[in-house]
């Protein structure tokens, strides 16, 4: 690794495991972040995060109030901007792609400063694990030169852990009774080219104090097609062998672009933060997408009487159609069905978590703000 660019990859199996886990995480997160040192937190201050992936840049702003008892957070803004960060044969990004990425980051930082009065030192910039592969020095250097920020790369494990914490609430309710939600749920993120996920559990060890631990999985299968379907099933089977919680957890939170597309197409009228799904619906949708993808991608929204709601649904549908070709949608939904079958979702409570895509950034920014 070139020390000049100080690419940092977190090993999250070390982070978040025991007593020192969080402080270690905070230490690691702050280590490479020149210009990202967080000042002491006052009531209602804005902290922001920008996540750069190979598909786009995502930004959030959080209003953070910290007192001795608790931390109050309010998500006040989020935005995603498309980017096509294609790599050249040597694994590095093309100059134009780098330029676009830098300009996008700059644009988001400007917006955060102008609209939310967020100073640069409270904007935390992270790069996805996919983007960090092959150590893109050119991109890191260009961003540092233009914005003064160092792009910090996460590893897949850390991404999943932060997503679990940022998406699944600690407590849930069954009737009027509170239950331990996070320790009895699993998170699965399904995108066009990958399946990731995991769960939190209390770790018992005779030689160490009890602590919360995370079990994570990640399957990356590139541009998915029918040819790779069998290997996906095999990979899922391997994952479940050593990670029983993927099968045994009775509550499943879905994130990623494919569940988003599914929920949008199935229930365009439903804008709730959590949209319930069932295996029957997943199987039916899989069959329907395979049989009539154009029909699925063009649902009739006239049944939505509320004008604002219908416009919002139309906007989401346009976004789905822009993000997926019919073939990609069919392959993505087939992947959801494969996961549902292999991880035995029949009879479980399954939700699409609408804000799950922000979970990682939420957790990251919150951890930085609490330092």
């Amino acid at each position, binding site marked *: 690794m070139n020390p000049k660019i100080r690419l940092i990859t977190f090993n999250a199996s070390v982070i*978040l495991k025991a*007593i020192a886990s969080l402080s270690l*995480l905070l230490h690691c997160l702050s280590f490479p972040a020149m210009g990202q040192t967080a000042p002491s937190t006052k009531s209602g201050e804005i902290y922001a995060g920008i996540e750069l992936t190979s*598909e786009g840049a995502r930004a959030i702003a*959080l209003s953070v109030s910290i007192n001795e008892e*608790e931390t*109050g*957070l*309010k*998500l*006040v803004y989020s935005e*995603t*901007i*498309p980017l096509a960060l294609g790599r050249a044969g040597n694994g590095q990004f093309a100059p134009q792609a780098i330029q676009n990425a830098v300009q996008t980051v700059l644009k988001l930082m400007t917006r955060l400063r102008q*609209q939310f009065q967020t100073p640069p030192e409270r904007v935390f910039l992270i790069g996805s694990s996919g983007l960090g592969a092959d150590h893109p020095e050119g991109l890191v250097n260009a961003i540092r030169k233009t914005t003064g920020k160092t792009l910090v790369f996460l590893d897949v494990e850390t991404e999943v852990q932060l997503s679990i*914490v*940022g998406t699944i*609430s*600690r407590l*849930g309710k069954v009737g009027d*009774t*509170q*239950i*331990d939600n996070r320790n*009895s749920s699993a998170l699965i993120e399904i995108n066009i080219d990958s399946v990731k996920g995991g769960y939190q*559990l*209390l770790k*018992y060890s005779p030689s160490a*104090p*009890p*602590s919360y631990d995370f079990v994570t999985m990640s399957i990356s299968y590139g541009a998915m097609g029918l040819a790779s379907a069998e290997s996906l099933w095999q990979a899922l*089977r391997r994952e479940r062998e050593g*990670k029983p*919680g993927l099968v*045994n*957890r009775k509550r499943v*939170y879905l994130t990623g672009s494919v569940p*988003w597309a599914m929920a949008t197409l199935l*229930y365009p009228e*439903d804008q709730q*933060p*959590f949209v*319930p799904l*069932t295996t*029957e*619906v997943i199987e039916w949708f899989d069959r329907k997408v395979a049989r009539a993808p154009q029909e699925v991608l063009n649902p009739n929204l006239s049944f939505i009487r509320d004008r604002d709601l219908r416009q919002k649904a139309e*906007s*989401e549908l*346009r*976004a789905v159609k*822009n*993000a997926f070709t019919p073939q990609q949608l069919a392959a993505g939904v087939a992947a959801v069905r494969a996961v549902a079958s292999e991880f*035995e979702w029949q009879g479980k*409570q399954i*939700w699409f*978590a*609408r*804000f799950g895509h922000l979970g990682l950034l939420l*957790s990251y920014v919150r*951890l930085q703000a609490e330092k």
Partner: protein
Amino acid sequence: MSGGAQIVSFEKQALSSAQETPASNLDAGLPVRPFASWFGQIVGPKAGVVWQLTECGEQIAAPGQIGQDLPACAEVNAILPDGRKVFVAISIGTFKKGLAEKPAFFHAVIEKNEQFYQVLRLSDLPERLRAPDRPPATKAKNRIVNLPVIKADLSRIAAPFQYLLPLSSIVPTTTGDSIHVETPPPPPSLRQSVENVSESVLQDRVITMVKPVYPPSAKTINATGTVVVQVTISQGGLVVEAEAINGHFALRNAAVEAARKWVFKPVIFNGAPVRVKSVLTFVFAPGAR
């Protein structure tokens, strides 16, 4: 999927084994009554209790089998009304080898204010719960990475993957009052009540529609007409009860049989799928024979 079926079966066996084991088998100082019953009494009726099968301990070599094995525990966790969390793990075998001869107490932990209090003997648990402020048995302190409830300003939150929309369409433009929802909220619990919905609502949510088979016996008596079947549909969209409430008796069974095979998109109330009751009307016209 045979492996999956085995795991489900193992899970059920493991949980019931731990639940039904006499508490006295897990700790000689406890009464001879099923562990689940004893634990329920200890944590009280207002505690939210979850049982699950979980891994407990490091991977171990599985003799005679490919790959590694994992110790398995039946874990029960409970949230008490005062916010404390109680975990008890009962060792029940391994995931590959299956159930051990006898379940055994593995571990118990109380979590309060992000601190873990180890309970070394199960018989100590009642006293430890009665003395919530007692210092921890271990000095372990674990800050849990917990996000508090986050309030989202929906007017400023972009849709999850609007990557390809022009920037102007997703930049927030309003700063006025906005709807606030708490996210992530507790998951919507499955409602146990049954909601009545109209047949037209149900028809909009049909996934699988099965036409009734015109019974030969009905043909002999030239039976035609409408049969109304009252159906109850599960949260998952399956017909779980079907009863013909009017129509020609020669046609009723056929209508009920068909109705049982219908599948619906779940009906959602307040963000949660609910059990619903409605009717399906089948028309047996002369031409349908």
